[in-house]
């Protein structure tokens, strides 16, 4: 049977809209993709916990009509680990900014990946600290302008996909807000995947990153996501291997999920204590 048609108003807290994000900010597109993914998976709102940290992206938790936990800067994955391990039946989704996930939260990011706990981490990568007014992030990369890099950045950027892969994440993917449907489809797969999933979504901050680095307005930045990226296995990528790759890089179903592994510990402990 066909499910009810998608209406995002069924999944948001209407009273808090319009949201706080700037005109043209890509975060709202990620929000839309997430809600569509949840809808298409047919998930119950009561089985989802969205945990976030601090920053523009982290405000997403307040807007969605799920169980929502807006925590402290960088620590969302740690809080979500407590939620998930204590009640594994819940779907744990953690939207994060690039600074939140990989600067202050970098340690939690790699350890959640190492544990392979069933959490979907969505890194909304706009390569800047937006909420504090445009400071460079660990994803800005070198040669960029930011309020804390008036003479250009000298810090190199992380590659979120490579980092997640080497830390042991069992689902790793990348898309952009230009590719809203692709983002939605990837988020669906990530939520369905049993284990730690990382979805990097390139998103624009026209207010700070775009303006400081002369990348134009939101529209031009989105066009850039189309121009500068290519799907894994595509002709476009073959012709220009330097493009940023999109798609699913890792989907490993052989690694035990953490909560399930802990259930085995419980079984062992109960047997030994008899």
């Amino acid at each position: 049977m066909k499910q009810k048609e998608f209406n995002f108003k069924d999944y948001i807290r209407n009273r808090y809209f319009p949201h706080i994000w700037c005109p043209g900010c890509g975060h709202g597109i990620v929000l839309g993709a997430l809600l569509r993914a949840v809808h298409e998976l047919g998930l119950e709102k009561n089985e989802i916990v969205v945990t976030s940290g601090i920053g523009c992206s982290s405000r997403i938790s307040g807007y969605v009509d799920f169980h929502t936990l807006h925590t402290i800067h960088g620590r969302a994955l740690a809080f979500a680990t407590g939620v998930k391990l204590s009640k594994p039946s819940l779907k744990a989704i953690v939207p994060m900014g690039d600074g939140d996930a990989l600067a202050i939260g970098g340690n939690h990011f790699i350890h959640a990946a190492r544990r392979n706990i069933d959490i979907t981490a969505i890194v909304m990568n706009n390569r800047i600290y937006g909420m504090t007014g445009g400071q460079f992030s660990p994803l800005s990369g070198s040669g960029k302008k930011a309020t804390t890099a008036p003479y250009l950045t000298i810090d190199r950027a992380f590659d979120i996909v490579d980092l997640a892969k080497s830390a042991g994440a069992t689902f790793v993917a990348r898309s952009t807000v230009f590719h809203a449907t692709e983002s939605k489809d990837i988020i669906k797969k990530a939520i369905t995947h049993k284990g730690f999933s990382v979805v990097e979504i390139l998103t624009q901050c026209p207010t700070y990153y775009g303006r400081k680095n002369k990348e134009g307005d939101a529209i031009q930045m989105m066009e850039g996501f189309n121009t500068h990226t290519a799907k894994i296995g595509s002709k476009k990528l073959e012709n220009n291997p330097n493009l940023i790759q999109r798609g699913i890089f890792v989907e490993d179903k052989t690694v035990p999920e953490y909560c399930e592994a802990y259930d085995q510990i419980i079984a062992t402990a109960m047997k030994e204590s008899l």
Partner: protein
Amino acid sequence: MAKNKPSEPRTKNRIRHLIDTQWCKGCGICIHFCPEKVLEFDEQGKAKAVRPEDCIACRLCELRCPDLAIQIIMDKEDNHDHP
């Protein structure tokens, strides 16, 4: 499940653009990416469907609207997903 028949003529009433002007922040993303140039800014700088009859219901505006301000409403029997 019914599919949109490409041969079927489009009418004004079949596709409605529900635009919340309180939520729209006027970024212009929907206007820029609309393949049929259905949308334009109104006098307040908010998105407006000025040529709704040209809409092919690709929903790119809805999918890419960062403000969740646009909904494409398909009337009655056409209430289904689109390619």
